[in-house]
C-alpha cells in the first residue's frame, strides 16, 4: 500500500532542477547539438550516396509505370513521333499501324491516368536528348478541366528533378508548400520512393517491357463497371493552370519545329443515348478553339462520326477500346494523319472546319500571353 502511495505522489524536483543552471544547460546543449549535428551530417552523406547508387539503376528500369518505368521507356525509345495522353492513348494508338501508314517511327508514351501536365514534363525530357518530328496528343475532358489530384500524379517525375528546369520548377514550385521542397529538394532519396521494388524486379527478373512500342492492347470482354459518380456533370470550368501549361507545351513544340496533332477518341455512350453532355460540348469547343487559334491539325474520331464506335464489341469498358477497336481506330487515324501531315504547311490549314468565335469557351488571354507559364 505504501509502495502504491509513493508511486502516486509526484516526486519533488530538487532545487538545481527548478532553477536555471547555466552550466548544466550549456553542457546539455553542446551534447545535443553534437549528436544532432553528426546525425544530420551522416543522414546527408547517406542520402547523397543512396541517390548516387539508385539513380543509374532507376534510369535503366523500364517496368512499373507508377515508378517511372514508362518515362524511361519513352526516353529510351528514340522515336520520330510520340503519342501522348492517358490510358486512352496507351490502349488505343497502335504504333505499328501508325508507323506503317505514315512512315514515321512511332512510340506510344501514354500513361494511365495522366494528363497534359505529364505530357509537358515528359516532352521536355524527351527534347533534351532527341529531336522528335511529331507529337500526337490525345486530349480528354479531364486534361483541361478542374481535377484535384493533378499535381500528385506528376510526382513520378521526381527522379528527373536535376535534369530539367521545367520538371524541378513544377515539382518544387512554392505553391506546392514547404513539404515538397523539404522532401525532394533537401533530401534526395525520397525522389526514389516506391522505385526500389521495380528496380530489383528489372535487374533480378529481367522483365520484358509491356506492350508494342508502348502500345498496350486490351483483351477483356466488355464490362461497364463505371462508378455512378462518373456520370454526374463536371463543372463547366477550365483549370487555368492545366490550360496555360498545355498552351505553353504547344508553343514550345512549335518553337522547336515539332508538329503537333490534337486528337479526340471515342467513348461508348449508351447510357446517354450517344449524346454528349453539356460539359463535354464545352470542352470540345475549347479543344477546337485551341486547334484553330494555334493553327494545329485536330482530328475527331468519335462515335458521332463512325457508327462502329457505337458497338460494344469494340470496347473493353465505356472509356477504352479493346484490341479490335484500337486496330480500327488506329487505321482510321493513320488515314487522317497522312492527309493532315501531307498538307503543304500546317499553318493556316485546319483539318477540322473552323468554329465561330462565339463558340469559344477559353478566354482569349490564354492565347495572347507570351511564353510565360502558370508556374
Amino acid at each position: 500500500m505504501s509502495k502504491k502511495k509513493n508511486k502516486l505522489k509526484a516526486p519533488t524536483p530538487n532545487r538545481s532542477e527548478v532553477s536555471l543552471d547555466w552550466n548544466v544547460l550549456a553542457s546539455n546543449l553542446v551534447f545535443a547539438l553534437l549528436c544532432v549535428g553528426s546525425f544530420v551530417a551522416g543522414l546527408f552523406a547517406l542520402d547523397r550516396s543512396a541517390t548516387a547508387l539508385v539513380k543509374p539503376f532507376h534510369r535503366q528500369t523500364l517496368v512499373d509505370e507508377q515508378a517511372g518505368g514508362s518515362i524511361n521507356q519513352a526516353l529510351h525509345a528514340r522515336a520520330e513521333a510520340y503519342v501522348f495522353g492517358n490510358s486512352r492513348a496507351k490502349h488505343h494508338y497502335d504504333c505499328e499501324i501508325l508507323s506503317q501508314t505514315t512512315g514515321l517511327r512511332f512510340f506510344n508514351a501514354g500513361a494511365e491516368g495522366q494528363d497534359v501536365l505529364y505530357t509537358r514534363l515528359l516532352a521536355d525530357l524527351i527534347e533534351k536528348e532527341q529531336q522528335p518530328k511529331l507529337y500526337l496528343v490525345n486530349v480528354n475532358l479531364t486534361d483541361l478541366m478542374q481535377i484535384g489530384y493533378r499535381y500528385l500524379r506528376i510526382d513520378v517525375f521526381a527522379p528527373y528533378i536535376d535534369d530539367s528546369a521545367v520538371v524541378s520548377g513544377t515539382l518544387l514550385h512554392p505553391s506546392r508548400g514547404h513539404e515538397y521542397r523539404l522532401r525532394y529538394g533537401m533530401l534526395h532519396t525520397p525522389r526514389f520512393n516506391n522505385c526500389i521494388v521495380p528496380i530489383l524486379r528489372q535487374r533480378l527478373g529481367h522483365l520484358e517491357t509491356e506492350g508494342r512500342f508502348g502500345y498496350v492492347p486490351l483483351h477483356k470482354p466488355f464490362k461497364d463497371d463505371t462508378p455512378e459518380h462518373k456520370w454526374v456533370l463536371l463543372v463547366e470550368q477550365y483549370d487555368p493552370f492545366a490550360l496555360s501549361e498545355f498552351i505553353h507545351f504547344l508553343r514550345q513544340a512549335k518553337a522547336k519545329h515539332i508538329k503537333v496533332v490534337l486528337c479526340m477518341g471515342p467513348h461508348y455512350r449508351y447510357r446517354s443515348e450517344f449524346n454528349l453532355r453539356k460539359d463535354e460540348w464545352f470542352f470540345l469547343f475549347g479543344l477546337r478553339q485551341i486547334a484553330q487559334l494555334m493553327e494545329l491539325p485536330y482530328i475527331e474520331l468519335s462515335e458521332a462520326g463512325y457508327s462502329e464506335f457505337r458497338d460494344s464489341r469494340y470496347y473493353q469498358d465505356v472509356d477504352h477500346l479493346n484490341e479490335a477497336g484500337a486496330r480500327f481506330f488506329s487505321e482510321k487515324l493513320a488515314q487522317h494523319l497522312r492527309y493532315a501531315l501531307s498538307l503543304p504547311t500546317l499553318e493556316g490549314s485546319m483539318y477540322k472546319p473552323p468554329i465561330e468565335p462565339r463558340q469559344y469557351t477559353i478566354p482569349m488571354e490564354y492565347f495572347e500571353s507570351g511564353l510565360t507559364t502558370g508556374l
Partner: protein
Amino acid sequence: MVFNSIDYLIFFTAVFLLHWVIPLRWRWALLLPASLFFYGYWKWQYLFLLLFTTMIDYCCCLGIATFKESAAQRRTLVGISILSNLSILAFFKYANFFITSVGHLPPVHQFVLPIGISFYVFQAMSYTIDVYRGTVPAEKNPFYFVLFITFFPQLVAGPIERPGNLLPQLKAGGRFNPEKFAVGFQLMLWGFMKKVVIADRCAVYVDQIFNNIPGYEGQAILVGMYLFAIQIYCDFSGYSDIARGCAKMLGFDLMLNFNRPYFAENIVEFWRRWHISLSTWLKDYLYIPLGGNRKGKVRTYVNLLITMVLGGLWHGANWTFILWGFYHGVLLALSKLKTAALERLHIPSIPGLRLVGILITFHLVLFSWLIFRVKDMADLKLAIHKLLAFQGPFQMNPSIFFNFGIGLAILLLVEILQEFKLDVSGIFKKSPIYAKFAYAYAFIFLIILFGVEKGAQFIYFQF
C-alpha cells in the same frame, strides 16, 4: 496535426528543443500551449469544447476533494462531471446515429465529430472517478490538469492515460536522458515504419475492396480481411509507438498499449494485449463497478456482454460496432466457459497446442475485423454470403506484397523474438552509439523508400 506529416516534424522538433532548454518549472508553459496548438491546428473552434469539458472536470474534482465528509455532495459532483462528459460524447458522436437509425428522423446537427473525443473524454472520466475513489489526489493547479488531458502525444488516439501515471510525471519532469531519448526515437521510427510502410500500403487494397463489396468475390474479401487485420494493428499500434516515443523523448513514460496481440492464445489474452489502455479502462470503470465476476456466473457473462457492447459502441456510432462488441463479448464468455470446463475436467495443457490456440484466436479476431470494417449491416451480410460461396479469382499487383513485405518481415521477426522472451529493446539500449545511428538510418531510409507518401490518416482518429 497528424504524426506522419512534415508539419508535425517541424512542430515536434521545436517543442523538443525548447522543452529541454527551459527550466523545469516553466515546462508546462511550453507543453500546454503546444498541446492546444497541436489540437487546434485541425479545427481551432473545438478547442473551446475541449477546454470547457476539462474545466468542468477540474471544478468538480476540486469540489470532491473539498467536501470530503459529505458523500451526497461528492456523488453529485462526480455525477455532474460524468454526465457532462457523456453528454458531449452523446451529442457529437451518437445523437445523429440513434435519431436517424432508431427514430428514423433527420439528423439533429451537422457538426464534424471532434477528433479524439472518445479518448480525452475517457481520460477525463478516469481522473474524476479516481479522485472520487480517493486513489489520486485532486490536482489544484489548473494548468497541470489541462496539460494532463491535452498532452499532445496521446491526445487524439491514446493511450488513454491514468492520472496516477501521467500527472506526477508532468509535474516532476526530469533532466535530459540521452538513453531515454534514443529509446524514444527508436520507438518513434518503429511506429512510423508500421504506419507508413505496412499499414498505408495495406490500406490501398483494403479500401478498394471494402468500399465496393458488391464488386468483389469471396477470395478477394478474404484477402482484404487479412490485409485489414495487418493494417489496423500496424496503424493503431504504430500510432501508439509514435506517441510513446515522442513522450519518451520529452522525458515521459506513457503506458504500453499493444503487446503483440496476434500472438494471444485465447480471446481473454487477446484483450490483455490489444488496446490495453481501453480494455483496462473498461475493466476498471465499467466491468468491475457492474459487479464483475462477484455476482454469480450469469451476471459475470451479462457484465461481460454489456462491457464489450459499450466498448464496441465507443469505437463509433454504427450497428456494426455494436455487433463487433457483442461478438467479442460472446467470445469472452465462451472462453471463460471453456477455461472453467477444462479446469473441472483436469485436462493438462498439451505442448504444441499453443500454436493451434494462436491460430484459432487470430481467425476468430479476423472475422471480427470484417464486422468492424464493413460500411453497414447490408455489406456485412453480402460479404459473409460471398465468403461462404468463396469464388475467385482475385488478381493483385505483386508489387504491393514486395513493398510492405519487407516491413512485415522485420515486424514479424522482432515480435517472434520478443515472444520468445528475447529483449530486443534491451539489446538496442546496450548497443554503442554508432549502432544506434545505424538503426535510425536504416529505418529512415526504409520509410522513405518503401513508405506510402501522403498516406491515409490514422484509423483510430475517427473514434
